[in-house]
């Protein structure tokens, strides 16, 4: 298959291994708009000005995957939503634990450096933050594509980065040998918060997504 061909190629065997530059740009744009929407939602929630860096879109081989967030054993917060509607699949949002603490502390009015274990209230706040961020991300994607996208209630897990990432990685594994992820950096004042989105369309949804965006015929 010609890796640089664009347009009306056969997409039956389409996966993230043979993404061309145009596709990467499209996902970068999805990431940009989605994360931009998420940043706006975050700013409203925190009632603070939130800046966002241009998201980094990366396609990685599995071997590198469990190190993308740093140490694979480092605890992170993962939020997973299933998606139904015109698209099916899942979306995962990962926050490093420190970043999660900072967001919760801003929201709850606690001192920023309070890294004590999350209580019931903190966990609930965290889930809500994840819900709003992924929800606004998906709603941007829905507006952009005209597709109906319905997210489920998020499930949350706090555990080793490698273990959390294994969940979207396995889904990508069904499609090919690489993983697509979008890293977004938010900042509030001098406080930086890095979040990672993994958008995992099902096999057929991937094609629907690219079609809706007019990338493939």
């Amino acid at each position, binding site marked *: 298959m010609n890796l640089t061909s664009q347009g009306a190629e056969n997409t039956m*065997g389409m*996966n993230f*291994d043979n993404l061309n530059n145009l596709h990467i740009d499209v996902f970068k744009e999805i990431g940009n708009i989605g994360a931009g929407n998420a940043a706006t939602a975050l700013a409203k929630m925190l009632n603070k000005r939130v800046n966002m860096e241009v998201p980094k879109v990366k396609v990685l081989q*599995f*071997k*590198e*995957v*469990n*190190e993308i967030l740093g*140490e*694979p*054993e480092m*605890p992170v917060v*993962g939020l*997973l939503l*299933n998606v139904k509607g015109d698209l099916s699949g*899942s979306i995962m949002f990962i926050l490093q634990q420190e970043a999660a603490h900072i967001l919760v502390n801003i929201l709850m009015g606690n001192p920023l450096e309070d890294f004590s274990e999350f209580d019931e209230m903190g966990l609930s706040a965290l889930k809500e933050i994840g819900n709003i961020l992924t929800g606004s991300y998906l709603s941007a994607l829905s507006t952009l594509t005209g597709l109906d996208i319905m997210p*489920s209630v998020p*499930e*949350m*897990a706090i*555990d*080793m*980065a*490698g*273990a*959390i*990432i*294994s*969940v979207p*990685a*396995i*889904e990508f*594994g*069904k*499609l*090919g*040998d690489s993983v697509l992820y979008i890293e977004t950096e938010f900042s509030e004042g001098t406080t930086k918060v890095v979040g990672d989105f993994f958008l995992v369309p099902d*096999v057929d949804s991937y094609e629907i997504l690219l079609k809706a965006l007019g990338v493939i015929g």
Partner: protein
Amino acid sequence: MENVIKVGMADLQASSHPAVLTTLGLGSCVGIALYDNSTSIVGLAHAMLPDSKAARNSSNAAKFVDTAIDALLREMLKIGANRSRICAKLAGGAQMFSFSNSNDLMRIGFRNVVAAKEKLSQLRISILSEDTGGNFGRTIELDSSTGILLIKTIGYGIKQI
């Protein structure tokens, strides 16, 4: 200095003694540790999906439980392992997220463990011990000097199997 060899996701490694094979942050994937106690040759695979035959793209043997075990066994025999002395230990296969409607995505950890057991039984490799399931991640280390599999978690302690 110990000879520590890292095994990534969808990856496998075999080594002669002395070596410590480790895979960090194992989630729903399954870690298959093989050990030959006559030569102290060790092997570790980190497989993501149960069945290579159900996949569209199966070029990477280490990705699937069935082909990973075959490939790992081959690697170990190549460096002199004694087929009849090889035993297995399993770890991982967790369900990291709990959704009420348990679809494929959620049950993949369990299915990975079942697939590993089936494949090992077909190959007549006995499973000495396992630490599988649950809803937490694991880091595992296989030590060629003892054949012990060390399992580390966040909040669920450390154990040796």
